[in-house]
């Protein structure tokens, strides 16, 4: 660590020598400090890289990487990529592939992948494998006919096209599908026909719900944040507790609370019925209403807290000056006060928007089938239909949206600091 070794062979005069040494010492000291700082950050950095960044990159590559066919049926994949023809050599290779895939019990993986492209493949593969394993050897040179007798679809152009699409290791099929696009037989990209489209609706719905939630949060949060800055110390404390209490309460508890509250026989319906405002119970849960109310309730503190901290720092003098200069109250408020609160408002709003775009639990529990957002479909394709490529493509889209918003957030706040208020 010590920088006392002075270069004695340099005979350029004492002054230069000394300043050179000092520069060197400073450089070394700074390098040591930089190393120290880096060493302190390193453990967390490495952990986030290995257990967060790598898994996510792995997930996202799943959107374009689909080696299932090649890994399971290497011989026939080879034939297709070499000759692009579905003749005798292909069916002979596929016959061999079926036998060896049966040995390694891997037929299902490729079957699932093919099925995602065109349904029917799984059962075709199963019965063909069974027949091949039983030793129903095809007549000399008649592999194509053998497959055709198992199932005529094996030689249908539609199914051959599906195999052709599934063979490449890298595919844009999932990315396209996540945007309701598909590749026609001629290779051109077009929208999927009406009735099979789904994801554009889901994206629009996600953005629309998030937008509504953000807007309601802003409308409810603005007067609250303002009142917080004007209340006496005692009442401010009480009001802040009112904001922080739900913030610290478990998400599941809050979701359960809304579910109980909004039920058909729940307290809210009982109250409305009892007071004669309504005649029959309202449906307020498992629909859009319940989703938006609960999301607003959960995310509102994230808007109020940064907004409040910005409003608190605005001196009262500006408003007084504006009024002193003759501005009417409304004009002074809109022209002087509101613009100064914009950094806080936009930071809070972007934060709420980011969080609601990716929300899963609350819509999953409180929404109906038509209120589910992207997150729900990611979970659905991972758990229920096991279409990991599509789940990855949707995750990629969601992450792109989130990163754009995060970038905007950083521009808006000017720092990487995210206000938590606590």
């Amino acid at each position, binding site marked *: 660590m010590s920088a006392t070794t002075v270069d004695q062979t340099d005979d350029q005069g004492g002054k230069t020598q000394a300043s050179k040494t000092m520069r060197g010492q400073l450089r070394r000291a700074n390098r040591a400090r930089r190393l120290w700082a880096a060493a302190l950050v390193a453990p967390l950095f490495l952990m*986030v890289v290995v257990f967060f960044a790598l898994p996510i990159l792995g997930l996202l590559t799943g959107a374009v990487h689909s080696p299932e066919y090649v890994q399971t049926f290497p011989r026939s994949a080879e034939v297709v990529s070499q000759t692009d023809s579905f003749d005798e050599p292909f069916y002979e290779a596929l016959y061999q592939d079926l036998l060896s895939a049966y040995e390694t019990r891997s037929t299902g993986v490729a079957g699932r992948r093919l099925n995602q492209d065109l349904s029917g493949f799984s059962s075709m593969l199963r019965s063909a494998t069974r027949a091949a394993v039983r030793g129903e050897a095809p007549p000399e040179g008649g592999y194509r006919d053998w497959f055709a007798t198992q199932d005529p679809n094996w030689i249908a152009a539609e199914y051959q096209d599906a195999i052709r699409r599934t063979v490449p290791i890298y595919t844009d099929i999932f990315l396209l599908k996540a945007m309701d696009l598909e590749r026609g037989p001629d290779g051109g990209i077009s929208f999927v026909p009406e009735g099979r489209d789904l994801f554009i609706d889901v994206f629009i719905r996600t953005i629309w719900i998030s937008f509504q939630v953000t807007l309601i949060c802003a409308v409810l949060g603005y007067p609250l944040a303002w009142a917080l800055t004007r*209340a006496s110390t005692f009442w401010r404390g009480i009001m802040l507790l009112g904001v922080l209490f739900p913030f610290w309460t478990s998400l599941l508890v809050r979701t359960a609370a809304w579910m109980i509250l909004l039920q058909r026989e729940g307290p809210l319906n009982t109250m409305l019925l009892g007071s004669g405002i309504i005649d029959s119970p309202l449906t307020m849960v498992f629909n859009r209403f319940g989703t938006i109310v609960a999301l607003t309730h959960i995310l509102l503190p994230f808007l109020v807290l940064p907004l409040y901290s910005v409003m608190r720092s605005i001196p009262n003098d500006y408003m007084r000056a504006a009024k002193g200069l003759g501005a009417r109250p409304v004009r002074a408020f809109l022209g002087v006060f509101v613009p100064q609160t914009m950094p806080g408002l936009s930071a809070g709003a972007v934060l709420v928007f980011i969080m609601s775009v990716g929300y899963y639990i609350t819509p999953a529990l409180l929404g109906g089938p038509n209120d589910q957002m992207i997150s729900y479909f990611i979970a659905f394709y991972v758990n229920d239909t096991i279409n990991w490529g599509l789940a990855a493509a949707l995750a990629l889209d969601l992450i792109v949206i989130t990163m754009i918003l995060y970038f905007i957030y950083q521009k808006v706040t000017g720092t990487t600091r995210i206000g938590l208020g606590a």
Partner: protein
Amino acid sequence: MSDPSLTRFERNSVRLTFAAAWLVILFLVLPIIVIMPLSFTGDTLLSYPINDWSLRWYRVLLEQPIWGHVLKNSLIIALASSALATVLGTLAAVGLTRPMCPARGTLTAFLLLPMIVPIIITGVASYFFYTKLGLTNSFAGMILAHTILSTPFVVITVSATLQGFDGNQRRAAYILGARPLYAFRTVVMPQILPGIVSGALFAFVISFDEVIVALFIAGGDQYTLPRQMFSGIRENLDPTIAAVATVMIVASLIILALAQYLASRTKRRFTR
């Protein structure tokens, strides 16, 4: 015009705004309060009026071994992951606030990503990754995943406290001959301790409340309290859920009080 005394219009606007603010507070607080009495019903329906008060559902809670089991799991996972997150996050925050820290902005933005990326993505990605490593259905996997999720909150709270810390004090300690570690332990640490503790509290709550990652990587043996609540809400919304919720609300009130106390202590320290 000397005193800009408010006009009647302004007074009314202020009153109206305060009324609106209190309504919003009610909207925030009431739904949580309303379900608490429902847990003391002797009925099987979650509705008012409550005719028959009883502790029946709390007894159910104690008699069903599952709730004790998931509470224990939640505590183990939350304690371990918040301890890990506090150590890693504090070290990183100290490094990031050093004046010589390289690429600070980018590094900070990167380290905060686990808080920004939708948890569903983190959950699915962890599921695939942990499956390869054999970490699904294990406490180690849950602790690791929760540590990652909660470190950003520690980094934020501790760096915020460090920004109020006067670096000259550390320099003074160095000049007086203290080694870096000793200076940190005796000069820096005591002053940023409230920040570290509230970061740890945050990390604990994040883990204790986390359900999405648990949905993907926890096996039956690692079910946490929120995970069990998720199943409960989904399958059978009975007053047991209200009883669990009430217990958790009381717990969060205690944590909130603790956090407020720590925040006021930090403030006093730096304004002194």
